[in-house]
């Protein structure tokens, strides 16, 4: 038996982390919790650590790394931890003192070296770590609430303090391969304190946000277990989007409820002993302070919704997914990406496209770059022409380490090898290993069609930034660059070879995030080819009041996507 989640009545720790699969409602609940606590008179700092943050959409204001007080909610301060901005600050801190002291060309090379993905990650992580340890923050705010990126990215962020402190501890040759962290040699203590703060149940609570569905629950279970392993044991489970029973005659609503009951009946073992709370599906989008406040108010029930009456007869015919597949067959792009916000169904669309292409006799390889991806979801529907793989960071790092050691062992004696192995234990190695695996999988397009199901936007953008940074670095590297790495960026930018498909839902934040993603992609020289609106309720018939309202609200967003995509769009209905 679970209870409703009412944070204002709970005795909560100073640090609260909201994590979970994409689309489960982390941002909504984090914002509602922050607002509820601030309304009680507590001083609250709300920070998004997602490189594709949605906080600005919720509050309707532009956000930066500097804390901004929300006008309608005194005591609530909000900021976005922007990894690129953090990296720029960090870079300037290191390079700045040498402007004028070193020749300009040298300063420029330092800047370039400090633009790689490892610097970006470290800078973001360093900013994050200072939030947990900086006394001016911990003394000013009663609560610091972290709205995190989807699981894969967040696990990495929370595991980094342990990884770096461990690396500092075992590193015997001093400054080597701290990489861009060398500018932070004084940070050792801060990272140790971060590890302690995260593991202290008086200070930190992990809020595992999930939906009552199997894949979200299994991702929560994984996060729970991995974070318990690094000492974050104080965990709550928040089951968001539960449905109230309405009418058995409504097949769509009944399907929702049936799915819920099945999922909750098979709760993963890791989640069984965690205090659990419920939140009901709200009939409104979580934007604006008014709606945020409604989430935990007692009048928020579906019955209270005066159905802003929807015209159920207005069923517009939108283009279907087979339009996209037919065009891909015709235009013969061999690298196909599905990208978008977490939880929009990128994997499902990737699989359906792969199956569609394979049905025409093509050899297709499907892969996911999402560290929290579910390979089993890709495999179902497999036929003889389809192969599947996953880029698992841990395995890629191992593979890369072995490869480098095998390449080098003829040149080094045992001490040299030990030194090399130590460099390879640097957490920075993960970046390059994952990146090379990504380049390798794209290279498979020489022989077959490659469908790449990506991690949620933030993570994917960082991967593409890495492609650009490494591409620049290649120019002045004497090392042996694999052809796959050399060819990567030119191939991604060639629209005859690569098709990016943006997957979204017909709702506020997924559309906003998709639009930002499209802009960022264009800046990197990659133009999205198709937009797919997934899990659309608009085409489904329902009399459930909550679902009706949500369905009616979709049309405006679908129209907007039609414009964004210049009518290169398909709509996939929600199905049971």
């Amino acid at each position, binding site marked *: 038996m679970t209870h409703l989640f009412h944070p204002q009545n709970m005795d909560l720790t100073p640090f609260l982390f909201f994590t979970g699969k994409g689309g489960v409602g982390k941002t909504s609940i984090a914002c509602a919790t922050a607002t509820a606590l601030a309304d009680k008179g507590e001083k609250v700092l709300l920070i998004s650590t997602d490189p594709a943050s949605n906080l600005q959409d919720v509050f309707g204001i532009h956000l930066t790394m500097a804390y901004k007080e929300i006008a309608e909610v005194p005591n609530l301060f909000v900021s976005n931890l922007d990894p690129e901005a953090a990296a720029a600050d960090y870079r300037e801190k290191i390079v700045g003192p040498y402007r004028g002291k070193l020749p300009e060309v040298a300063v420029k090379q330092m800047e370039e070296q400090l633009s790689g993905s490892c610097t970006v990650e470290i800078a973001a992580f360093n900013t994050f770590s200072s939030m947990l340890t900086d006394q001016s923050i911990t003394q000013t705010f009663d609560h610091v609430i972290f709205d995190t990126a989807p699981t894969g990215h967040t696990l990495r962020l929370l595991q980094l303090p342990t990884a770096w402190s461990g690396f500092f501890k075992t590193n015997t040759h001093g400054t080597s391969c701290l990489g861009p962290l060398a500018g932070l040699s004084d940070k050792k203590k801060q990272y140790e304190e971060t590890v302690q703060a995260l593991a202290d149940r008086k200070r930190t609570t992990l809020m595992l946000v999930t939906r009552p569905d199997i894949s979200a629950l299994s991702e929560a279970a994984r996060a729970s277990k991995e974070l318990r392993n690094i000492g974050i044991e104080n965990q709550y489970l928040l089951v968001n989007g539960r449905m109230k029973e309405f009418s058995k005659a409504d097949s769509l609503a009944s399907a929702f409820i049936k799915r819920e009951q099945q999922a909750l009946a098979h709760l993963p073992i890791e989640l069984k002993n965690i205090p659990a709370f419920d939140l009901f599906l709200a009939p409104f989008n979580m934007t604006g302070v008014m709606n945020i406040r409604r989430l935990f108010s007692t009048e928020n029930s579906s019955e209270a919704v005066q159905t802003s009456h929807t015209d159920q007869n207005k069923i517009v015919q939108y283009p279907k997914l087979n339009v996209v597949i037919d065009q891909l067959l015709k235009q013969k792009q061999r690298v196909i990406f599905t990208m978008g916000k977490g939880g929009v169904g990128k994997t499902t669309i990737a699989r359906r496209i792969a199956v569609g292409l394979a049905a025409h006799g093509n050899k297709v390889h499907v892969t996911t770059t999402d560290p929290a991806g579910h390979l089993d979801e890709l495999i179902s529907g497999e036929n003889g022409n389809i192969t599947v793989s996953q880029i698992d960071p841990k395995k890629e790092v191992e593979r890369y380490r072995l490869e480098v050691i095998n390449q*080098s062992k003829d040149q080094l004696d045992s001490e040299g090898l030990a030194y090399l192995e130590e460099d*390879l234990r640097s957490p920075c190695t993960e970046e390059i290993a994952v990146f090379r695996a990504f380049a390798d999988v794209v290279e498979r397009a020489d022989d077959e069609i490659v469908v790449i199901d990506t991690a949620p936007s933030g993570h994917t953008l960082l991967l593409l930034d890495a492609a650009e940074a490494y591409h620049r670095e290649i120019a002045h590297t004497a*090392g042996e660059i694999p052809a796959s*790495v050399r060819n990567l960026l030119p191939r991604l930018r060639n629209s005859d070879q690569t098709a990016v498909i943006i997957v979204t839902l017909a709702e506020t934040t997924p559309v906003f995030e998709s639009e930002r993603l499209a802009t960022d992609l264009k800046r990197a020289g990659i133009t999205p080819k198709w937009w797919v609106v997934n899990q659309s309720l608009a085409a489904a018939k329902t009399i459930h009041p909550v679902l009706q309202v949500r369905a009616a609200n979709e049309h405006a967003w679908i129209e907007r996507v039609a414009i964004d995509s210049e009518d290169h769009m398909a709509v996939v209905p929600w199905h049971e």
Partner: protein
Amino acid sequence: MKSIQIFEPAMCCATGVCGPGVNPELIRITGAVGNLQRQGYPINRYNLANDPAVFAETKTIHDLLESKGMEVLPATFVDGQLVKEGTYPTNQDLAKWTSVPLDELSKKPQFRITLNVNN
């Protein structure tokens, strides 16, 4: 003992393993310099990304970069004299400057048993 300084371009780390490709030259020089340092030899590597202060304070390298640009890196100085630019010193170079036998700089030769099954 002559002191040896090697000034290198901005890199993530001494072995270069976090760059886009692994450079066998970096692996070799890492091994050789490591062996010399373990014998107490005054040899140091300075990487622009990690040790910008040394570049700023050492007039010779500063002036060299100013006049010839970044292509001079890696640049090697023996007792303050520029002896090599644009490439790393070979193990033979290092053996000559330090009088340390060549086989102590790199991996000690190992016996290999080769089975030639084709003949």
